[in-house]
């Protein structure tokens, strides 16, 4: 059943209703509690209880993390109290992964089909699209589209959740930045990132793929930001106080100061089983990254 746009009722509080391709979408406020959300659903729908009966709807979680249990409760309220059937969900890849892990009771490592040298298959989990939103940051879980920043500070902003991933292009996408990054500058990219310069404290790179810094790395880097723990971080002088790869996070010990610029040998950070290993770069990629 479809819904013309002008029929959208005013919505407020923790819930926002809108129509997408004629389907009703319920956008959940990322900051509202579950109780508040449920109340908002009840308030909104009971205003005209019969209007939506028999309709389909999608839930848009934006960047919020909501327990599977609570999600189901919400879906039940919609169905049982208002006759609205939830048929779809917009969420971040991180959320998708959490739900899948919960359901399957398995740890899941996602990887890109091309890393396996195989064409994508039908059961390759499709990256969901979140059309309504650049997801807001949820503080606990870094996502590729974290931290809303003003536009002039985001040097390259691509590959947010908007981008449809199933049709990965042939070959890997790479962004080359031919200078350093200063405090407050943010780079987001849906592939690998190369920086020819220093990444200073307070700068941030969030890449779906690998991050290579041909200079000193002192800022924040999140490689494999969509959960790909086969991603690596490589730098001429790895001095970042914190590294993230996929869902892993490492706090490397402070390096002794040297008075030689790039006084440390190039190093590579990769996910070695349960944690991130940082080691001298031996001229090749570590074996079996992302696997125990």
């Amino acid at each position: 059943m479809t819904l013309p746009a002008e029929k959208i009722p005013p919505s407020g509080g923790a819930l926002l209703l809108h129509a997408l391709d004629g389907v009703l979408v319920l956008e959940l406020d990322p900051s509202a509690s579950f109780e508040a959300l449920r109340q908002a659903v009840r308030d909104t729908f009971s205003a005209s209880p019969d209007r939506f009966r028999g309709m389909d709807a999608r839930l848009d979680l934006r960047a919020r993390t909501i327990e599977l249990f609570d999600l189901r409760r919400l879906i039940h309220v919609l169905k049982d109290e208002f006759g609205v059937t939830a048929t779809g969900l917009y969420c971040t890849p991180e959320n998708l992964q959490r739900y899948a892990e919960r359901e399957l009771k398995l740890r899941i490592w996602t990887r890109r089909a091309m890393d396996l040298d195989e064409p994508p298959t039908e059961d390759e989990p499709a990256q969901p699209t979140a059309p309504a939103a650049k997801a807001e940051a949820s503080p606990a879980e870094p996502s590729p589209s974290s931290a809303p920043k003003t536009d002039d500070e985001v040097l390259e902003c691509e590959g947010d959740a908007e981008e449809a991933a199933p049709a990965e292009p042939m070959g890997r996408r790479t962004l080359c930045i031919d200078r350093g990054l200063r405090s407050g500058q943010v780079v987001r990219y849906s592939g690998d990132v190369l920086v020819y310069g220093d990444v200073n404290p307070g700068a941030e790179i969030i890449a779906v793929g690998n991050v290579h810094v041909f200079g000193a790395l002192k800022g924040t880097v999140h490689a494999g930001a969509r959960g790909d723990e086969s991603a690596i971080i490589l730098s001429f002088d790895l001095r970042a106080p914190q590294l993230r790869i996929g869902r892993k996070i490492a706090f490397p010990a402070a390096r002794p100061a040297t008075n030689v610029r790039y006084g440390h040998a190039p190093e590579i950070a990769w996910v070695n089983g349960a944690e991130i290993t940082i080691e001298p770069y031996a001229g090749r990629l570590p074996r079996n990254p992302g696997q125990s």
Partner: protein
Amino acid sequence: MSECIVITSGKGGVGKTTTSANLSVSLAMMGHKVAVVDADIGLRNLDVILGLENRIVYDLVHVIEGECRLKQALIRDKRLENLFLLPAAQTRDKSAVNPDQMRKLVEQLKAEFDYVVIDCPAGIEQGFKNSIAGADKAIIVTTPEVSAIRDADRIIGLVEAAELPEPRLIINRFRQKMVDRGDMLNKDDILEILAIPLIGVVPDHEDIIVSANRGAPVAFDDTSVVGEAYRRIARRVSGEADVPFVALQPVGFWENVKRWMGLSAKAGV
């Protein structure tokens, strides 16, 4: 060819106003016609540092809102007839002005003056955007502290994004003795991060505080080492090449003896 230079830092209290006052005085002492603009609307204090606070009738916001002519608002310095201050409004805030208006104002000033120096407020918001709007060049002030350097780095990024060419750096409140003890970042540590040309190092010195309270910037004082540091910065700003840096508190004889005897731990704080 006149030039508009903005003095900025990101972090507050690192010495933008002190630098603006002393650079302006030094440039004026060299014979240039200088206007110094206090863009810190709502928190003006450049007028106090210059000792001109009692003469303010009109201010920058009055000019921009057309309540007076630019000439009426400019205050001529008591000591240097080619130095003028355009004071900030104290009763308004940063939103009273927008970048376009600032750009026009600076154009007007540049028609009259050799140098227009803008004292930028702390932060990266409206006041900062206004201050850099009309500027041709930027001087970044930092102190040798990690937090100040982080903010300076941020500001340099924004200044570069605004396409102001090659910002230059002043390291303020430098203490050679602390550096020698390993308690303060040295020049090279700072330059490694910020990677822009250094145009001056100003020692941490009580002359600054004394002169600020007297309303007579230290650059007027021929005998002061800090005054000399600012005068040399002005020479570099005006294009003079190879101006040597001032010696930063040379380690004295007794210091050396004490250090040699292992007694230097608390020396010279």
